[in-house]
């Protein structure tokens, strides 16, 4: 049996974010490494050094629009809560419980206690969400500032372009390393999810392993009598194939970018 952790709308958002993030990573890293063959390979599908910047800017604007729509979405979600608290168990907002969960989780890793029962969102998932949120603000903000240096230098002194550029760069490296190493390892590599956590794609999460990891959430769903509405049979073969195809191509691209980036690091004029 499979468990639906995300709505169709959330999965669509994740997919759009994922695709646009990968485009930004490819064009951005490609331009950063334009002096090396690695960078040139990345830029080729986007039409080379100058055209890649056009893609980078357009997709950047698209991501900001996506972020805007997401903000509207959060507001609607918050309004529909009515008298229920926004700090409830379904909330993505970190609370004191997450701190304790993290300590217990680390304790489990070193063999001091049993695995803690997670609620709907693990603390690492909350961190992922807010990391993207603030990353969006920082990269999106500096990106918008760099969009047209002539306009931005009319608002702020020109040297702020140098500053914005470096913030943009470092935050992008942080985001890519986090997604391509940590996020991918958690969603694909660890035994619980191996070879891929399909919660965000067709079919949903595996119910048995969710029971093990998210015991608190599952028992809450059972108590509220909602569990049956959220479970279903696995998807048919096409859905499975497409999910794996998307997931594994993202991993391949991500690893290529990370490894190429590290190997070619010293050949670039920063």
């Amino acid at each position, binding site marked *: 049996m499979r468990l639906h952790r995300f709505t169709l709308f959330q999965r669509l958002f994740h997919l759009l974010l994922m695709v646009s993030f990968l485009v930004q990573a490819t064009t951005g890293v490609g*331009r950063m490494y*334009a*002096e090396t063959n690695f960078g040139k390979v990345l830029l080729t599908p986007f039409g080379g*050094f100058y055209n890649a910047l056009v893609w980078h800017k357009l997709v950047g604007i698209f991501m900001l629009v996506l972020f805007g729509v997401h903000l509207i979405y959060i507001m609607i979600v918050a309004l529909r809560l009515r008298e229920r608290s926004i700090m409830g168990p379904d909330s993505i907002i970190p609370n004191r419980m997450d701190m304790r969960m993290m300590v217990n*989780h*680390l304790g*489990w*890793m*070193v063999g001091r206690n049993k*695995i803690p029962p997670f609620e709907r969102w693990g603390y*690492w998932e909350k*961190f992922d969400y807010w*990391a993207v949120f603030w990353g969006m603000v920082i990269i999106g903000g500096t990106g918008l500032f760099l969009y047209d*240096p*002539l306009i931005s*230098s*009319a608002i*702020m*002194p*020109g*040297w*702020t*372009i*140098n*500053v914005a550029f*470096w*913030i943009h760069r*470092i*935050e992008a*490296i*942080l985001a890519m*390393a*986090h997604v391509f*190493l*940590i996020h991918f*390892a*958690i969603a694909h*590599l*660890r*035994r*619980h999810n191996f070879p891929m956590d399909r919660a965000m794609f067709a079919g949903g999460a595996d119910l048995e392993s969710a029971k093990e990891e998210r015991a608190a959430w599952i028992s809450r769903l059972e108590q509220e009598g909602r569990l049956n509405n959220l479970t279903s049979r696995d998807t048919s073969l096409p859905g499975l194939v497409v999910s794996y195809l998307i997931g594994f191509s993202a991993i391949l691209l991500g690893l290529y970018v990370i490894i190429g980036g590290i190997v070619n690091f010293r050949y670039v*004029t920063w």
Partner: protein
Amino acid sequence: MRKKTLCLLVIAAVILLPDPSIGQEEVASRYYHYRSTEMSTGIYEEYEVRPRGIHALFDGDKERQRDAGISRSDESESRAWNRLFLNDSHRGIAFYEYRRCVDCHPGNAQNRHTVRYGITCRQCHGGEPIASINHYFSRLNPIRQHTHVCSKCHSGAKASFALYAVHEPNPARASTIDSIPFLFYAFWIMVAIAVLTFALFIPHTFMWIVREIFHREKKQREE
């Protein structure tokens, strides 16, 4: 009594009357100058500062006139020129003609315009002679950098735009605090955030992956 009034009048005149017309405008910050004058008027030439009339001091001596106001130009006085203010910053440098810019200025070649966009040094610094940045009539003098250099390619460039550091200082170096302090601090704050994140999450993820391998094995053994 009359002496006192006279003194007071002179002091009041010095304080209250505007500076004499020969007084030159000086600004400490190119950015505030830009905001207070150029941004509203769009005119930049009015504020240009011409060199003081120093030529009269070297009446007739063309050689000395050329270098006037530059610092020592008298060859008998064996002191180096202050190359920051020469009209030909390479004047007197042996074998200059036979070398490339990057041979002597390797650091300056490491800028994005040259490395990425293929702009040559001369497209910005101009033909011979290459004036020092701060020479009165240098095209790269801050007061006209944007009109005479940047706007050749970036049409509509303003003085603020020219404050962009083409030869960007290394943001990691402490010396950057002197040129663009924000760059230095922003760089290290961002690096600190990144290092903290990874110091936490890389060991965390690694331990997690290792732990889960054993978790399943234990369970299987129990069954």
